[in-house]
């Protein structure tokens, strides 16, 4: 099979540092975005979402920023902990896609103690 999908972008950070994970989307009609966390052997877990009428949304230790001009989404994790180590996916939803949730490739976050 193809190897293109096997090489996840990776981000390695020190415990306690802040992490920023980026995502680019292509559909300008996308109006709802979600960040998921997926640990090894588990299904994706919802972290935070944002609608297109917002630029920023904060949760507990996480912040999502949306830049519709350049179609860019980011997830900021404050005071990263070893338990944050996982693969993070952004997903977009657009009415012109039949409301289908489209996932990005994912970024692997590794937290060094």
């Amino acid at each position, binding site marked *: *099979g193809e190897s293109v*999908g096997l090489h996840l972008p990776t981000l390695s950070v020190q415990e306690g540092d802040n992490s920023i994970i980026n995502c680019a989307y292509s559909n300008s009609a996308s109006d709802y975005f979600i960040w998921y966390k997926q640990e090894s052997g588990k*299904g*994706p877990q*919802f972290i935070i979402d944002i609608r297109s009428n917002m630029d920023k949304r904060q949760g507990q230790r996480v912040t999502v920023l949306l830049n519709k001009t350049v179609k860019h989404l980011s997830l900021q994790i404050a005071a990263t902990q070893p338990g944050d180590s996982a693969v993070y*996916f952004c997903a977009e939803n657009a009415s012109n896609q*039949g409301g289908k*949730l489209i996932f990005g*490739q994912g970024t692997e976050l590794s937290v060094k103690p």
Partner: protein
Amino acid sequence: EAGVVQSPRYKIIEKKQPVAFWCNPISGHNTLYWYLQNLGQGPELLIRYENEEAVDDSQLPKDRFSAERLKGVDSTLKIQPAELGDSAVYLCASSPGLAMVDEQFFGPGTRLTVL
């Protein structure tokens, strides 16, 4: 509250054999999804059910894949016959409402290996 339950967790079969996956969504959730996830990639939707009706199966390879949700609760996804390229994780998710903008809760997935 119990989450989405899937079984089996792992399945190894030889090519051309049939295989079936089972999903029990969170109680009360109307919408059920089956996704395929290849290694290192995000999940891709195969089929979405609203209660017992399949409302989006455009990505389901209908020549070999089939799914059912007869009573609007549990669901099964079947592949017959399986091919080498079907090796992947098959995820089931459910959401409480009838719109994909609802939060989706994922099960742990079934990892299929086709030899």
